[in-house]
């Protein structure tokens, strides 16, 4: 029984440690082309998204919501989290570059 339990623990640890790529996408040139902006701009948007949104709640993956959902949510969250207009634009570009198709 004890060895089975320890095996289970090792499997769980392996699951956690070997699946260590970030769930939040890292922008590529294809994303930049799709969003009509630069990779650097998307990277800054990602950083702002993690900093401004991730400190309040679990970060949502951009692929989880459609463009219209993101565009409805962003103004409300911008006010709530006191995000500047310029930062909100960067964050919006980042999430829309990989949003769920409508």
């Amino acid at each position: 029984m004890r060895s089975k339990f320890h095996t289970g623990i090792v499997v769980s640890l392996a699951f956690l440690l070997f699946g260590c790529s970030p769930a939040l996408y890292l922008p590529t040139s294809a994303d930049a082309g799709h969003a009509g902006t630069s990779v650097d701009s998307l990277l800054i948007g990602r950083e702002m998204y993690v900093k401004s949104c991730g400190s309040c709640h679990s970060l949502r993956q951009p692929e989880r919501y459609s463009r219209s959902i993101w565009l409805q949510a962003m103004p409300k969250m911008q006010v709530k989290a006191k995000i500047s207009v310029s930062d909100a634009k960067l964050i919006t570009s980042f999430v829309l570059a990989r949003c769920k198709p409508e």
Partner: protein
Amino acid sequence: MIVALGTNAQDRVFTYTYQSNVLNKGQKELEVWTTLGTVRQEYYRGFEHSLEFEIGLGGKLQTAFYLNYGYSQGITKSNGTDILTANSSYSFLNEWKLKLSDPVADGLGSAFYLEYKLAPEAADLEGKLILDKQTGRFIHALNLVGELGFEKKFTPEGNRILAETEKELNLELNYGFSFRINENWFAGVELMNENVLAEGELQKSLLKVGPGISYSGQGFWVNLTFMPQLTDLKTGSRSIVSDDGLQTRLIFSYAF
């Protein structure tokens, strides 16, 4: 959908297992914990309640204060005579959590956790390493926990009462796995292995596994987990004389 995206609280989906997320600076949560302990010998039933006030301090740090109250009733034996015994307990607890990495933005979410608990007859110090990961609809969380407890035992001797301090080390491992059903509901499993060491020896190694559900809405969440004890790994059978055969825990949280 928008409501769920924009205003969900801290997104905690487990009751026994902690996740790495912390509240933002100035954000506050009030949590009400209730744990029902049953399936022991001799008609035992016990409740543990906690009222927790949690606040984000910024810099990925949060603190919380708990007021704990517990009461139980069951039959105990003394010199062959059954006695109906009722117990109650009170304690104060303060926790600190520092988030080190994020479960979505980084490869692995992590946090350090430290708490101390003070009661009239006991004091505890507990540290946790929290690891978690979110991928798509799945959340995994793993906690490595060490707890050092000191308890005063009072025994009458003649016309005096003697006090003796007992020291106990508790090493615990918690693992939680949860699946997002939709924007509001999560369902999953929690596993706990609780090892108690006293006087240099392993006293027990309880293994508990049970299902849990979580619902989060506008500014609040509710988590419920059933945690049956499967076995004591030290003896190979369940320990239900001084430990619960089944614990049921409900946490309700309101963010403001």
